[in-house]
């Protein structure tokens, strides 16, 4: 009796690791199927989670095309402080775009009053990419004629505007169509207007990235760094944008759960059947004196080892897939996120654990002798 216990102990000491290794080597096909299953499961979970972490930023990036979401104005005709643009840029964040606008009312060659706006075309091009025009002005005296404004100008190639008894000669490079009040204006570069009419910008339009809270926070920072200015978020844009981004995020997360669940069930089926397949091993080990829990432990350890390999391979594969989807759909890279790894790891280990434990009841009910006899 004494001897048998000690021999059992020594056998256990050799066996747990040895058994595990040998069992893993024994049937490479079976192990490969399980590893493949867990790899796919981990890869899909990684890709979807990485994407859903990124989706907010990606969609806000897309919404840039809707134009300014914060408008900064001065109180009654006072000029902006010298450093206003720089301060607004820094308050808005690194990806903020700010365009200053100065206005003057001039007379066209038909004697109609028209608003002439001076701006930084480089910034407007980024801010208002929806403006429909043939080309953006580049030279000093290039101008854009709003479609309505152009109806009140006789000579449209060389636009003569009179202001304060002087004449400004502009070169029109095309018409501007927006469907808004921009169409009633003429746009020139800011330095041209400033030097000719001696007016300073009265409006700065800003595009801040992020959801409603981020826009509000940026607006608050602007108010703080530039007291005396009116900072108004364009609620029409900010509200819809946050809502859509929030919904897409919820949708993506729901999809992650669904798809992960489906793959999880498949892995569960594959792995638990591979445990069941080894009833004979179980019976043999049991007959040789191993306790049931020891054998189950072996199965679980095996499953964990498989899951570990699967998660590592799946994480790499999934990150690659997320990067591919990001490039394909949004034309910007989605970088791998280390923060999804623990979630994927725990999830797959759990699947593997359940897959190993699920057949436990069936195994426990087995009679080793009957099984070995071939019944």
């Amino acid at each position, binding site marked *: 009796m004494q001897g048998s216990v000690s021999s059992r102990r020594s056998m256990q000491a050799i066996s747990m690791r040895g058994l595990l290794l040998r069992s893993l080597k024994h049937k490479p096909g079976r192990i490969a*199927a399980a590893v493949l*299953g867990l790899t*796919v499961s981990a890869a*899909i979970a990684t890709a979807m989670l990485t994407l859903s972490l990124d*989706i907010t930023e990606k*969609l806000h990036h*897309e*919404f840039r*095309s*809707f*134009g300014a979401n914060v408008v900064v104005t001065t109180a009654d005709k006072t000029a902006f402080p010298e450093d206003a643009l720089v301060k607004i840029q820094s308050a808005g964040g690194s990806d903020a775009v700010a365009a200053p606008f100065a*206005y003057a*009312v001039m007379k066209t060659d038909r004697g109609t009053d*028209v*608003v002439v706006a001076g701006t930084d075309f480089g910034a407007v091009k980024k801010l208002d*990419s*929806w*403006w*429909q025009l043939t080309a953006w002005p580049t030279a000093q005296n290039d101008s854009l004629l709003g479609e*309505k*404004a152009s109806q009140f100008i006789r000579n449209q190639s060389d636009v003569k505007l009179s202001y304060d008894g002087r004449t400004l000669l502009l070169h029109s490079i095309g018409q501007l*169509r*927006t*469907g*808004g*009040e921009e169409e009633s204006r003429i746009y020139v570069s800011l330095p041209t207007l400033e030097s000719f009419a001696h007016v300073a910008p*009265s*409006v700065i339009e800003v595009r801040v990235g992020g959801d409603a809270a981020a826009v509000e926070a940026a607006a608050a920072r602007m108010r703080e760094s530039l007291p005396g200015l009116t900072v*108004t978020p*364009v*609620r*029409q*844009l900010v*509200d*819809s944008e946050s*809502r*859509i981004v929030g*919904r*897409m995020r*919820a*949708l993506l997360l*729901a*999809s992650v759960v*669904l*798809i992960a669940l*489906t*793959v999880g*069930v*498949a*892995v569960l*089926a*594959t792995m638990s*059947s591979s445990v069941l*397949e080894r009833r*004979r091993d179980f019976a043999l080990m049991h007959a040789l004196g191993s306790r049931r829990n020891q054998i189950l432990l072996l199965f679980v350890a095996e499953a964990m080892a498989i899951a570990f390999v699967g998660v590592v391979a799946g994480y790499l594969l999934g990150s690659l*897939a997320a990067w591919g989807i990001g490039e*394909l*759909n*949004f034309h910007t890279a989605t970088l791998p996120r280390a923060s999804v790894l623990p979630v994927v790891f725990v999830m797959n280990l759990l699947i593997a654990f359940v897959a190993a434990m699920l057949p436990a009841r069936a195994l426990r009910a087995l009679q080793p002798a009957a*099984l070995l006899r071939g019944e």
Partner: protein
Amino acid sequence: MFVRLLWESFRRQKRRKALAGVAILMGVTVVTSMLALATSIGDRIHKELESYGANIVVTPLAETLQVNIGGVSVKPTTGGVGLRESDLAKLKTIFWANNINGLSPELPLSLHVGETTVPAVGMWFAPKNGKAAAVAMHPWWKLNGAWPAKDDEVVVGSSLAAKLGLKTGSTVGAMRVVGMVTTGDETDGQVLMPLSAAQALAGTPGAVGRVLVGARTRPEDAFARENPDTLSPKKKELWYCRPYANSIAYQIAEAIPGARAEQIRKVEQSQGQVLRRISGLMWLIGLGALIAAGFAVSAAMATAVLERRGEIGLMRSLGASRGRIAALFYTESALLATIGGCFGFLLGSLLAAWMGRRIFEDAAGGLLVNLALLPAVVGVAVLVAFAGSTPSIRSALRMDPSATLRAGA
């Protein structure tokens, strides 16, 4: 005999069949719901974006040039009012009349308050003829108080109210302030009043300065941007009969003499890109779901066959031909896939409708999935089940029956 084998197989191996069935069910559910969402996501987001308000603006053709800076008129508008309120009835006659769901005529005027002149706009507040009016078309307007109900009531923009020290209950001229509105745009500096009151004050009965139109449209694509007058007659008809904002604007300009209708580009032009990206993402996720489901189904089927190698050996040793055994297994797969596929399709449709309701707050969340897709979905499920079970059936049939029987036990 064949039918009996089939029947017994399902009757005796409930656990295995259930596992494979659940895998198929879940796979088809996920694919169906993802496809339903991917096909409808464009419309849903488009609908969300319509809450940006009007997408077409109608102005008089012979309008004098607006001299507006930041919504404040530098030169008070005098005359230049070319649209008539009665013309709005003509909008009912255009091809896409039923797509117009919001109509907000506006009349700008200058209001004298004490010594200062403030900009004011007359508009419809309450819906008229079943079409949304100003309030519903500007969902981002935040009102404190009530909208004007009578001609002597007005609402004041918040920044103007602060400037003039107005409160709810104070008076502007002969009119009573019944509410304050925060809009985040130039309307914050204006007085809003009923259209009829504005017409009476301006001395131009029946006149309208501009009309904002909200229409259900199709997202803009390259064809929408074509100039209809340069298209061939056949193409023009096609363009005309598509609910683009452009074509609806074109039809409005045709119906109302002296009017110029233009789509509000900011909304229409920008959303194309966003919509493409979002539906592209959903299709990619749908693809991911398809791969996951295919994997799940084929893994489950492969397992189901692998577990029964002993059975296959027995049947072979009893004289069943390989073809017969393969036929039995394929029939089982097809049966499982059909049952799982049908239920999965149903479940997936319900799930998609539920997710649509939860996430997008759809008013009408019926079945989104076209029933005509059912055969296609089930067909794909059967094919995937076949593909998944083929390798294991083949390897099981290739094995020597005596070896399988000895090892199987």
